[in-house]
């Protein structure tokens, strides 16, 4: 049993008094209650967790949430085994058994990596260009292709678990319990309306759960979250649904959600494992936040390559350092707060590589004061270390950002975190067949007009508002259901701002500058420089 070498001594929302035992690829580890499988693996210094679909490239943990692309795990055994489960969404329970997928004979030595060696001969869609001769041989070729495909293994036994379903109606359904969603639920709940608030996470609070410095009313944001939750729990007509993912938005404001009842405690006979909610609401508020975008450089999929927000979450929420020497690359200010959090936790940040030509302001100053080098007008061009980041190559960008100049510099590190700005989570909006539109200022798609016949609105990060004060303000604009089902057609999907009830709340403005707009051109420049 190995110790949690990358666990920070203090901090995080985990319960250090409850040790949890689990296994990964047959090896035993410990974590704490409140960990996800991802945070626990990182705490134990495990970076390599899987292999890519086709080329079997070594892959690690990239994010701290539902958007995780690489840490796909075979969870459990026998009749309850589940393939392709994201380590970032698996709540750790005692006795959890997990395995990596798509590798043989082992994760570190995988014969499938041969595909990676010959990748040039098997590019995307190569199978359309060959396997045509002899004509009758397709079924033969197919046998091998099929065996190589798929990621995890489906169970071959009868599912022993039971599932529940429930219909419900309400006045206001809020999806997402971050600052905007909590504010909206509060505002609606206080009017006496029947409100349901759903969030996919085990704890409500959204982005504020990973915050270290944000304040509301000059108090730490977590105080505001706790107060809000206490008040919501006491409101009779308000129902809180944690661990509940809204997965389908249907006609006439009906939504399907899945609530995970026992997945976080492991196999539990005689209790429904999950519950399907079919909710029809007079008004739906999408407060689904946004997803950070990674930046592009050669071999940016190595274990140890992560998102800046993920690093921040692991440090602040889970008390884990994803690495001991973490290089950050960014085109906006988000990385600077993370650098300060890392420095305060005792983690070395050799440099912040900033695509922007000039970096000034109080955050930059604070970072420099911690002894962290800021390489403005630079980019990471390549990462070294096949089974885990060892070092990065950094180069200066030309003035127009279209090419890389000068010689490269090597910086040794074991983790690279990038931030390319934020993309609002528009999935549910798009499911209604409402369109999205490009917002030049934040370099992202935001919800466009809502389709007639659906009564919903996107607030906060979900429509490109990233400032905490603004998110809270949007949430608080009163949210009673509207009589007419004809929706707002003109302009954006912002709520009509009647007098904001936030008058009694003086909000601290957190400085967040919008992301720079040049990340795509930079990516091209880097790609070109490496061919």
């Amino acid at each position: 049993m190995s110790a949690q070498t990358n666990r920070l001594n203090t901090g995080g929302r985990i319960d250090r008094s409850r040790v949890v035992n689990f296994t990964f690829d047959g090896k035993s580890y410990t974590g704490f209650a409140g960990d996800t499988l991802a945070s626990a693996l990182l705490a134990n210094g495990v970076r390599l967790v899987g292999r890519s679909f086709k080329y079997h490239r070594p892959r690690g943990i990239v994010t701290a949430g539902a958007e995780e692309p690489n840490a796909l795990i075979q969870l459990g055994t026998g009749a309850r085994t589940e393939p392709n489960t994201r380590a970032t969404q698996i709540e750790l329970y005692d006795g959890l058994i997990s395995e990596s997928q798509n590798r043989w004979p082992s994760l570190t030595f995988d014969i499938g990596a041969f595909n990676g060696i010959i990748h040039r001969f098997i590019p995307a869609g190569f199978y359309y260009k060959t396997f045509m001769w002899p004509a009758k041989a397709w079924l033969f070729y197919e046998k091998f292709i099929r065996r190589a495909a798929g990621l995890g293994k489906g169970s071959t036994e009868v599912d022993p678990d039971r599932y529940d379903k429930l219909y419900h109606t309400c006045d206001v359904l809020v999806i997402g319990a971050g600052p905007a969603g909590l504010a909206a639920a509060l505002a609606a709940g206080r009017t006496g309306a029947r409100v349901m608030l759903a969030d996919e996470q085990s704890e409500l609070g959204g982005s504020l759960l990973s915050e270290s410095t944000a304040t509301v009313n000059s108090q730490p944001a977590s105080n505001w979250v706790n107060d809000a939750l206490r008040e919501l729990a006491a409101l009779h007509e308000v129902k809180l649904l944690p661990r509940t993912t809204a997965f389908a938005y249907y006609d006439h404001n009906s939504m399907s959600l899945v609530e995970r009842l026992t997945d976080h405690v492991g196999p539990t006979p005689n209790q429904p494992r999950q519950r399907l909610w079919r909710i029809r609401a007079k008004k739906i508020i999408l407060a689904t936040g946004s997803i950070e975008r990674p930046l592009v450089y050669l071999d940016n999929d190595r274990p140890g390559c992560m998102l800046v927000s993920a690093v921040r979450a692991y440090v602040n929420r889970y008390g884990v350092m994803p690495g001991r020497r973490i290089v950050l690359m960014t085109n906006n200010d988000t990385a600077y707060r993370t650098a300060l959090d890392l420095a305060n936790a005792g983690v070395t940040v050799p440099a912040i590589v900033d695509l922007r030509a000039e970096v000034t302001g109080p955050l930059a100053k604070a970072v420099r004061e911690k002894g962290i080098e800021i390489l403005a007008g630079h980019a990471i061009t390549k990462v070294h270390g096949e089974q885990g980041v060892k070092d990065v190559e950094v180069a200066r960008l030309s003035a127009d950002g279209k090419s890389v100049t000068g010689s490269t510099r090597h910086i040794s590190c074991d983790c690279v975190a990038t931030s390319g700005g934020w993309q609002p989570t528009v999935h549910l909006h798009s499911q209604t067949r409402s369109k999205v539109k490009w917002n030049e200022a934040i370099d992202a798609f935001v919800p466009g007009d809502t389709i007639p016949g659906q009564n919903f609105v996107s607030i906060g990060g979900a429509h490109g508002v990233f400032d905490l004060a603004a998110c809270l303000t949007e949430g608080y604009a009163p949210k009673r259901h509207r009589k007419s089902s004809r929706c707002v057609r003109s302009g954006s999907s912002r709520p009509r701002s009647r007098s904001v009830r936030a008058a009694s709340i003086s909000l601290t403005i957190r400085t967040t500058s919008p992301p720079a707009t040049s990340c795509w051109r930079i990516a091209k420049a880097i790609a070109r420089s490496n061919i």
Partner: protein
Amino acid sequence: MFVINCPYCGPRDEHEFGYGHEAHIARPTLEQQGTMTDAEWANYLFLRTNPKGVHFERWVHTKGCRRWFNVARHTVTHEILKVYKMGEPKPDLAPSALAENNPR
């Protein structure tokens, strides 16, 4: 999943209802049937407007009052513009809401 406002029972989920296809198709009288051509009969039996836009259709509340009624619904947005009783005339909706290209 639609919510349909049954004129007799109130708003109910779509799966309580049966779909009755296009409304306002008058069945030819016995007399007319005697003198119709095959083409006219086929017209009545099979030809439909199938609009990409507002569709005037029939629904029956199978798992409720079991009565038939009419609905004006947009076939792209699924917005229900009007529910009206069987026997009532086709409602006058704003021209911009109606489909073009539907000779009848």
